């Protein structure tokens, strides 16, 4: 079975490791690809440079606080792009600020998740993401 391709846009290596481990515990076969900043994310999605032969993601996990280009800018670009806008974008960030939540939904994020402080809660959240987006939800055909 083809693994579900996930693009994780996250600059904090500690968070990358946590997320990767949490996804490995999942029931659904998935492949996690990671880029460290907002510019690399857009390059990956457009298949530019070193990302030329990377698969198109079925789901994007996007942090807001990113170097070079922040998550909101990426979100706006993705949702403005005819080729990219059908990919579900899950905002996964430390921030619980209402301003960030509102702005993300206004830019058409598919949903907004605040990373829990507690490790076990974090793992539960990642499992919930997998359950929902990979088994409950129908993803757009690739």
């Amino acid at each position: 079975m083809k693994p579900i391709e996930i693009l994780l846009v996250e600059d904090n290596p500690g968070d990358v490791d946590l997320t990767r481990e949490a996804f490995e515990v999942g029931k659904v076969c998935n492949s996690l690809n990671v880029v460290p900043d907002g510019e690399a994310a857009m390059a990956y999605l457009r298949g530019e440079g070193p990302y030329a032969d990377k698969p198109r993601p079925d789901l994007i996990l996007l942090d807001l606080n990113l170097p070079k280009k922040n998550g909101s800018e990426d979100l706006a670009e993705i949702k403005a792009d005819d080729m990219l806008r059908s990919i579900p974008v899950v905002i996964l960030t430390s921030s619980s600020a209402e301003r960030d939540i509102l702005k993300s939904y206004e830019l058409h994020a598919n949903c907004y998740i605040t990373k829990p402080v507690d490790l076990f809660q974090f793992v539960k959240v990642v499992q919930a993401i997998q359950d929902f987006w990979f088994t409950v939800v129908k993803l757009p055909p690739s």
Partner: protein
Amino acid sequence: MAKVDLEEIFAEARFRAIAICLIVGAFVMMFAVLIIYLYLQWNADIAERKRVAEQGKLAELHKTQAILQAAMDNLERSNRDLEQFAAIASHDLQEPLRMVASYTQLLAERYGSQLDDKAKKYIRYAYDGAVRMQGLINDLLAYSRVATSDFSSQPTDSQAALEAAIQNLSATIGASRAIITHGDLPTVPSDALLLTQLFQNLLSNAMKFRGNEPPRIQISAQERDGEFVFAVKDNGIGIEPQHADRVFVIFQRLHSREEYPGTGIGLAVCRRIVERHGGKIWFDSAPGTGTTFFFSLPK
């Protein structure tokens, strides 16, 4: 000769009389003109002085306006800085905290078997510290939001605000088996959300700091001297009078964390809300019997 002389004398006399009249009249007129001129000049002088004084006042007014505007600009800038600080706190401080909390947990989980009890204790202290700091940051954010958030004072049904607070605390009320009653509560000019938060904090405290019995909380209000004085009475552990000032200070706690959880922000937020409305907050307490918190809101 007499006739001619008489006529001549009369003519001359008449001529002289007319001449004198004319000269006197001229003098009187000149005198009158002088008086009128001096009067007009005096008036003009007064008018001029008034004008100068008014111009002076206008300049003063402009100066005061400029000072006020500068003060307002300063306040707005300071408010924006506070909001920015809050935004920074919610992003940039949370992330490293999560790293500490998550990885100390992972350490305990993955390497726990290789660690002795002391090491596990050290990890637990580190983890607790991170979690506590998270709570402090969230509370600080909540506290600053009370001061900087949009404040709109409308006639608010305080009973509805109380009921909203009770609704928000329904889980705690159920768990502590608290009984909450209230008298007639008035409509008072206030910010509905802040008033709800005020009631919520006071009720939450009343339930947290309870004695051995289930909490009984009574809320009432009185009208007094152009303001409404609310009372929230509980049967909890009470507060000793020497702590009267400390309880309202942010992060000041009277008990150890093992005895009662919390960061010590509830009453600081209450005070900020009440002061924002132009009121006061205070309490009466008998340690071991209970506490009544009072707060006033102007009409």
